[in-house]
């Protein structure tokens, strides 16, 4: 048996390394570096019921050990995805996660319904997009709204449901618990941390939307803490991410209780990251005499 094989929601992942939503396109973009089917899973760019052009202005800004992004969920819509990118993505032999965003409860539900047609593995509900609001309040920062949208999508989808949490909250454990109670099969976190940059020379906010999302190694200590707290708060599996840039980082998230990890910004630093991490983790298991990587899960 493969030492990295990971049981997750009834699926057998080759390994616990997944590409994070929005950082790996629809699975094909990094192929010039390695075969994406080497990865345990791939999460699609966030999709919405209606196509989105995304935000104007600068979309990427580097910060110390991190990046701020203001992509604004640019995507062709769930429907167009099903006609085009979906087929190429399904052809990759890896856990197929579809990331779903939305502006209203109805959009989420309708998007989820549309995805019932397709043979996807996991629906990742992105309730943490800062631009997505319900009554002025983002779904992802209030346990009651999170519960509501999770419950509605749980009813609408036939797929396994993973809810992706925002780190911009006081009590991450409460958010995780609310989603678990509403029927989430798994929790993933963290999405980006809300941040800001000012172009001092131009005396202006860098981003047209003023605020943007921070990711990358800078946020890793925050992400690790939240994954630890979330894993303690719920029984369903937790998928951890935020600044992972080496196999040791991945190990720390697994030790903190994650069932699997996702890699995002780290791939912009080293496009071979996914492949190298899988190899490094295999070597680690050998060296540490682990029959399976799962043995270290949650030991901290």
């Amino acid at each position, binding site marked *: 048996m493969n030492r990295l094989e990971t049981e997750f929601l009834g699926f057998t992942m080759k390994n616990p390394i997944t590409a994070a939503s*929005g*950082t*790996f*396109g629809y699975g094909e*973009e*990094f192929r*010039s*570096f390695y075969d994406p089917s080497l990865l345990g899973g791939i999460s699609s*760019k966030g999709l919405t019921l209606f196509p989105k*052009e*995304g935000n104007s202005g*600068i*979309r*990427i*800004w*580097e910060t110390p*050990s*991190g*990046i701020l*992004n203001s*992509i604004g969920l*640019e995507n062709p819509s769930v429907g167009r995805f099903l006609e085009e990118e979906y087929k190429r993505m399904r052809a990759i032999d890896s856990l197929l996660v579809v990331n779903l965003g939305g502006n209203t409860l109805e959009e989420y539900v309708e998007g989820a319904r549309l995805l019932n047609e397709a043979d996807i593995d996991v629906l990742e509900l992105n309730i943490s997009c800062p631009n997505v609001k319900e009554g002025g309040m983002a779904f992802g920062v209030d346990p009651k709204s999170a519960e509501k949208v999770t419950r509605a999508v749980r009813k609408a989808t036939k797929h396994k449901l993973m809810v992706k949490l925002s780190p911009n909250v006081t009590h991450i454990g409460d958010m995780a618990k609310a989603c678990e109670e509403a029927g989430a099969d798994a929790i993933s976190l963290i999405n980006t941390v809300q941040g800001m940059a000012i172009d001092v020379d131009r005396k202006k906010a860098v981003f047209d939307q003023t605020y943007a999302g921070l990711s*990358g*190694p800078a946020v890793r200590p925050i992400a690790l803490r939240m994954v630890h707290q979330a894993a303690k708060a719920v029984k369903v599996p937790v998928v951890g991410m935020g600044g992972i*840039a080496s196999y040791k980082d991945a190990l720390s998230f697994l030790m903190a209780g994650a069932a699997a990890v996702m890699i995002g*910004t780290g*791939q*912009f*630093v080293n*496009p071979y990251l996914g492949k190298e991490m899988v190899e490094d983790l295999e070597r680690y298991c050998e060296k540490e005499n682990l029959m399976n990587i799962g043995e270290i899960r949650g030991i901290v």
Partner: protein
Amino acid sequence: MAVILENRFLGDEMYLLSAQYEGKAEPGQFFMIRSAGSFPLLSRPLSIFDVQEDSISFLYKVIGEGTKEFSRLSQGMELDLYGPFGKGFDLTPEGLNVALVGGGMGAAPLFYTAKRMRELNPDQEITLYLGFQKENAVVDVFKELNLPLILNFGGYVSEEVDYEKHDVFYTCGPEVMMRRVSSHGKEFGKPVFVSLEKHMACGVGACLGCTCKTKEGNKRVCKEGPVFPGEEVFYE
């Protein structure tokens, strides 16, 4: 990892860096480049300046921390080169008489473009228009091409161009300059191709950080570009 062969200072914060390289690379394409180590986080996009038998070179200007790190490199040190990425200039343009118009570091992709074009069609007529803030040794490097070379220092190189004479225009440089070349070309009903710059994270079309608006909807500068028909991106 590519071993650095030379990192030559050319004045006014500009450097010509060459490194060992074997492989294909088309004019107008670019590489995502990083000097070893984890700082800065993102790789920096640089256009291909020239490709020789076993080497590739890049012309860059020191802007911020990333290019500052590049300037510290010297022979024998190593560099990560990811690429080549994107779609470059069409080397067999419709029209015999091409103008290549570069402003500042926009000159970078034009050297190899001119060189390859002439290799592919020795009859191709090529004129180089280059604009810089100050005099510098980059100009001397371009002189090696032995092509008609019109220079402008501190002014608007877009206004030096003879829009009547040439059949097609390739341009790279500050957006204002490229917009001017585009609209002049349009006035004369002639095709203009522009090479865009956007902040990039992945370089391979995965992050949508480099999207630009075009007549036909959003396109990714790193994947569908960086070279676009001027009228497609400067349409408003």
